[in-house]
Every structure is written in C-alpha cells, then in structure tokens.
C-alpha cells in the first residue's frame, strides 16, 4: 500500500486576530451596538475569531462613506483607478499563501483548491478588470460610459475571496464605490482584503466591508443610498432581494442556484469524462452553484461509466482541508450539512439507490462522504432541487433529443456540460441547452475574461468579461 503521510500546509503564515471590526471609510471600527458573532473552522469547530455584526447605523455609515467617496473615485482618470486595482491584484498574489490557508481554515475547502483555484483566480479578476478601467469607452457600452454609484454587494460562503473579486473588481474599474457583505460563516478573507485595501492606499470609502448575517444583508440592499445591488447566493434570497428593490431606481444582478446537467454521450473520451464528472460535483464539496449535479449518461455506456466513476470515487481523499493531498474538505456549516443529509434521505426514501465509497470521516467538524444516487428519474426531488453538496444524481437518456429535453427540464439554467468526441454534436447540443455556461469536454473551468451567469431562476446579469462591466456602467 502506498499510504501518503500527512502533508499539512503550515498555519503559521496566517495571523488571525482575536476579533475584527467593520471596515468603513478606510479603517476598522467597532459596531455601534457592540454585537459580535463567532466564525469557526468547519473542519474542527474551533473558533477562529470574533467578528462584528453590523447593525442599521453601521450600514448607514458604510453606505454614506461609499457615497462620499464616489464623486472623487469616479472622477479619477481611468488609468489612475487601474493603478490601484493592479496594486490590489499584486498584493493578493504576494499574500496568496496566507489567503489560501485562511480560506481553507474558514471555509473548509481543501488547500489544493484555495491555493490553485480560488486565490489565483481572484488575483486574475483584479488584473483583468484593471485593464478595462482606462478603456471603458471601447467596451461597447456607449460613447461616454458612466459609473452607477454605490454598489451593495452580498456574497456567498462557497468561494469567499473569489466572489469578492468577481464583485469588487468590475465595480471599481467602472468607477463605482462598494459596500460588500461577506457571508457570516466565511468573513475572514474579506477582512484580510480590507487590510490589503489599506496596504494599497486605496482612497478611504471606495471599498467598505461590513460583516453580519441575513439581516445585515437585507438592510444593505434595501438602503436608499444604494444605486446598484449585486447578489450571489440562493434563489430563495434572490427572490426576496428582487422583491425588495422592485420599484426603486436600483439596478440588480443576481447569480443564484443551479442544477446543471452533465451529459455524457457514448462517444465521449470516457476516462476524461469521469474526471469531469468528479470535478463537476465534488469540486469544493459540491458547494458550487454551477456544479454538475445531474449526470445524464447515454444508456449504451451506462455500465462502463458508472463502474469507472465508482472506481475513481474510491480514490477521493476526504479529510483535513489543510493537508495538501486532500481532495474533499469539510462541509461549510452545520446548517448546510443538515440540508444535504435531509435531501439525501429523501433521495433514498423516494427509491433512488445511494452509494458512497468506503471512507472514514473525522469525528469533529461537518463532513459528508462523496455520494451518488443511481436509478434517479426526473420526478425525484434530488433531481430537481439544488443540494449544494457532494451528492450526484445519475440519470440516463437514449437519444440526443432526450438528453436536451431532460437537461432543460429544470427551473434553473446556470451551466451544463457536454462530453463527446464529435465536434458537430458539441455545437448542436450547446445551441439547444438553456444554460449560461456550456462546458464541452471539461467542467468547472473559470476565467476572468469569460462571462458567467444564468437563465431562468439561476438569475440575471453576467459577471466576468466585457459583459461583466455592463452591470456597473450606467
């Protein structure tokens, strides 16, 4: 047996403070009423830090700081704004190891992913949008593009720093100022980003970061001083936000849930398709809105694909997020673990067959073994509802038309995958899929120059690329 010895990344590079205030107008301040909450490591339930909970007057202060900073920031030459954004990108790169370790600690994701995906992509987003800041006239958004104003941005816990980058980079490039609220279970990398803003000498008030739970987020998006709302998270909260801003002048972009179909045709490169299936659903413990959570396999190759998938899943290494060889880390919170368990039990009780490879899970913390359900039909709840965990529903199809029909038969439409060696089939199927991103012979690939966003209940607006600027230009 080739047993890999523990290879933990050192925590010593991170200096977590016992408590964090709110980042408003360029400096950290205590919340008015002094309330705080704790953020824990989901892998061990260890308390990492106390974080301020922003109340109504704190939200007011943050929004007015952003408002006050707006005119001067918007009036800066684009090249000067670019200089600041490039600086943020470079400091993220310089502090990448620290950010990666902190992200894995606070979120539970494997260090391999935070190190190789989250943090490099976050830096890449700042680099990419820094390049646009002095070229907005050439973005195809009209002859004299103008910023919208103050952006209220609320982001999820699945990619804390990366979602921050997706939100803040285009906003700053367009000349807007922001108030951002990270998710309550993963505030720490956003607070380090606040330090990075200080380090970069970003003018005070251009970026404000306030921490808190749902009530803080609701207060922020409903604030009358906000001109633009950008939200990534659940469809349920997305609906509340859409209702809250209806009838106001606020512009909104929403990036919500998904139930993506990953379609494997019989002429697919099978070994790579299996990798793609695994990456599609088990990347980031399945806490991915565009996860390939519905596998559609052509019936003629079903047995082979399923056997290969199970063999591959037996290789997945579940455990300590800071171990460099870990493939699957901890579930982000007790609440999310409960939701995954509940939906999985419903899957079993509705008659689907559940399978997980043998794997031992740690005693403390929140863990869920990688799981697949076979014998799933379109009528099962696990084929319709977003589980947001490492749980894959496997369905079959006979013809390309049936594959498209099943793939589109969902209220969501964020992403999809197509696996075939036949180029013409890729193009034909991609044309018919009602999904914002269609990956061909790959899955979960992201690039700052590529727009991302949903159809139907997966939201509206696009982030990334030239399209992502449109949300921040009036």
């Amino acid at each position, binding site marked *: 047996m080739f047993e890999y010895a523990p290879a933990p990344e050192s925590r010593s590079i991170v200096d977590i403070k016992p408590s964090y205030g709110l980042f408003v107008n360029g400096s950290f301040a205590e919340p008015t009423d002094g309330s705080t909450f704790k953020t824990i490591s989901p892998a061990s339930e260890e308390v990492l830090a106390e974080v301020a909970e922003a109340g109504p007057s704190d939200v007011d202060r943050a929004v007015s700081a952003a408002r006050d900073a707006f005119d001067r920031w918007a009036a800066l030459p684009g090249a000067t704004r670019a200089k600041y954004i490039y600086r943020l990108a470079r400091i993220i790169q310089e502090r990448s190891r620290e950010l990666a370790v902190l992200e894995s600690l606070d979120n539970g994701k494997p260090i391999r992913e935070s190190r*190789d995906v989250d943090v490099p992509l976050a830096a890449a987003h700042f680099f990419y949008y820094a390049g646009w800041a002095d070229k907005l006239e050439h973005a195809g958004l009209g002859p004299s593009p103008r910023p919208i104003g103050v952006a209220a941005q609320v982001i999820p816990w699945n990619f804390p720093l990366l979602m921050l980058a997706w939100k803040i980079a285009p906003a700053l490039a367009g000349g807007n100022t922001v108030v951002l609220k990270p998710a309550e279970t993963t505030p720490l990398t956003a607070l380090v980003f606040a330090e990075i803003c200080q380090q970069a000498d970003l003018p005070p008030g251009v970026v404000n970061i306030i921490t808190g739970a749902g009530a803080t987020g609701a207060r922020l998006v409903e604030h009358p001083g906000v001109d633009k709302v950008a939200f990534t998270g659940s469809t349920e909260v997305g609906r509340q936000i859409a209702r809250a801003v209806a009838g106001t002048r606020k512009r909104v972009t929403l990036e919500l849930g998904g139930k993506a179909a990953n379609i494997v045709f019989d002429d697919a490169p099978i*070994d*790579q398709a299996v990798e793609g299936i695994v990456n599609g659903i088990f990347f980031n413990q399945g806490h991915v809105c565009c996860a390939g959570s519905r596998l559609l396999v052509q019936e003629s190759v079903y047995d082979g694909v399923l056997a290969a998938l199970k063999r591959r899943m037996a290789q997945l290494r579940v455990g300590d997020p800071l171990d460099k060889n870990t493939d699957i880390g901890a579930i982000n919170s007790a609440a999310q673990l409960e939701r995954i368990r509940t939906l999985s039990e419903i899957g079993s009780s509705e008659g689907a067959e559940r399978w997980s490879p043998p794997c031992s899970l740690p005693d403390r913390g929140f863990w869920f073994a990688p799981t697949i359900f076979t014998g799933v039909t379109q009528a099962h709840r696990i084929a319709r509802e977003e589980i947001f965990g490492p749980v894959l529903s496997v369905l079959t199809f006979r013809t390309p038309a049936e594959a498209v029909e099943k793939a589109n038969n969902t209220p969501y439409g964020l992403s999809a995958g197509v696996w075939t060696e036949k180029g013409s089939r890729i193009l034909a199927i991609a044309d018919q899929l009602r999904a914002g991103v269609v990956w061909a*012979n790959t899955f979960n690939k992201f690039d700052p120059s590529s727009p991302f966003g949903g159809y139907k209940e997966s939201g509206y607006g696009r982030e990334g690329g030239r399209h992502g600027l449109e949300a921040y230009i009036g």
Partner: protein
Amino acid sequence: MTAVLPEVSSSGTSLRAFLHGLPGVDQVGAEQRAAMLATRSIKTTAKEWAIDLAIRMVDLTTLEGSDTPGKVRALAAKAKRPDPADDSCPAVAALCIYPAMVPVAAPLLAGTGVHLASVATAFPSGQAPLSVKLDDTAAAVAAGADEIDMVINRGAFLAGRYQQVHEEIVAVKGACGAAHLKVILETGELATYDNVRRASWLAMLAGADFIKTSTGKVQPAATLPVTLVMLEAVRDFRSATGRQVGVKPAGGIRTSKDAIRYLVLVNETVGTDWLSPDWFRFGASTLLNDLLMQRTRMRTGHYSGPDYFTLD
C-alpha cells in the same frame, strides 16, 4: 487473451475497427489529470517507502555507441549494489544494454536477482527487415538476456498497417522464448494520445508483457500524461482479458521527485497491483543517483555531495 477477443487480430480490418473503436483521449483532460496528480505532496515515511520502491524499479540503462565491456561491468556492479556505503539499499530491477554487451553482463548478473534486459529489433529506429529483428532478438536471448525491449515499427503504425505491427510483435515474442517482452511504443513519434492508446492495445493484443514509452533517443520521451494513458490501457486490458501487463516509462526521468510523481500516478490510476518491479519499471540512467542521494538524506538528515555516489 485470444479466447476473449479472438476475432480482433484476425484481419487488418477487424484490428483497425477495434483500435479505432476504443474511446478517444481528450488531450486537455488527460494533461490536466496528470498535472493534478503531480501536486501530491509525498513526505516523510511515504517518501522513504517510495524511494526504496523506485530504486527497485529502475532498469539501469546504458545505450550508447561508446559502450564498452568495462562500462557495462561497472554498471552491472552498480545494479547489484547501488549504494556501497549502505547494505540496506536494495538492488535495481534490471540492467538494460545493447545485445552486443549481453555476453559481458550475463555472467556478472547470473543468480543475483537483477534481470538482464537487452534492447533488440534494430533499436532505436526499428527500420530493418523482420528477419534481422528476429536474429537480433534470438542472439540477445541466447547470450543470456531474460528481458527483451523491442521497438515497434512506427512507420507501419503511422501508415495504418496495424496488422503488420501486430505480426512483427507476435514474431518477436516467439523469438523471445521464455524472456519477457517489453514493447517500446516510442510515444514521442506517435504524437497523439489516441495513437498511444491504440498502440498500447495493439502491443498487448500481440502478447507484450510490458509496454514501454520510449527509446530515450527521441524527444519527448516519457511524460506523465502519456504514462497515464498507458496505465489506463493496461487497467482496461486486464479487466477485459484477465491478463496483467506492466508499464515502463523511459527517458527524461531524472529526479526522485519525478519518480515519485510516476508512483503516485500508478497508485491513483491502477492501484497497488502495479506498485511492484514486476509490473512497473523506470528506464533511466541518472535517476538512480538522485534516488540514492535522497535516500541518504532521509536516513541521515543531511545531503551528501554528489561525490559520495558512484559515477559509472
């Protein structure tokens, strides 16, 4: 084998249909998988274990026009006892040399457990008449080689004459007698992963005991993704036929870090059944000294300079 897939190699048409019916290899995906596995961090006890295993998997190789009996004798001594300063250091798997040198090495290795491998079949190009290739093979076996590393006829393969490639391998296998046959695909000349997969199956259908990436005379030689595709082929071949075939990457593997990456690839693609010198080998010359240097460092806690390891 022939009982399971009897019709496949019966004609050029059926052989072509079979090889072209294998699932394709997506280049981006295969390279991405190999690159991900290369990030595995193998430390402390796992590293010690892997280094000793890697030493036991080395086919210590010299394939130069300038090879002499003296050079071969020195390398044979090193193969038996790679680290004269440390009795616990295992021997390598085999010595790999030209047929003309086999008579020199055979008496030195007899009874030691170190195999004697000889390249044959007009190595490295394979561009000679079949009768010459068979004589080359028979001479090496007669002189004492118990492993033959043959090259496939890439000219015939790339021209689509799969039946000819198949027949040549079958003939060489016949000339090997009891000697183990490693079939070198020369993946650097096959160029695509689809070709690598087809050539792997072709060689296994024809009776190869091992499939080997490269001669070491063509760039690129062994790479992680090529080895991944070959490992997938031996895995699938075993589940189709029940017969296990070994894999030997050769050329360009120079450091312990490289070797450990290959072992991780084996571990996570085909599993422990292949983690043995009977089923996985490294064709290498300079790799051994780096493995020895790392081994000594793991045991003593410090690096000895390269002068503490023999140059042969």
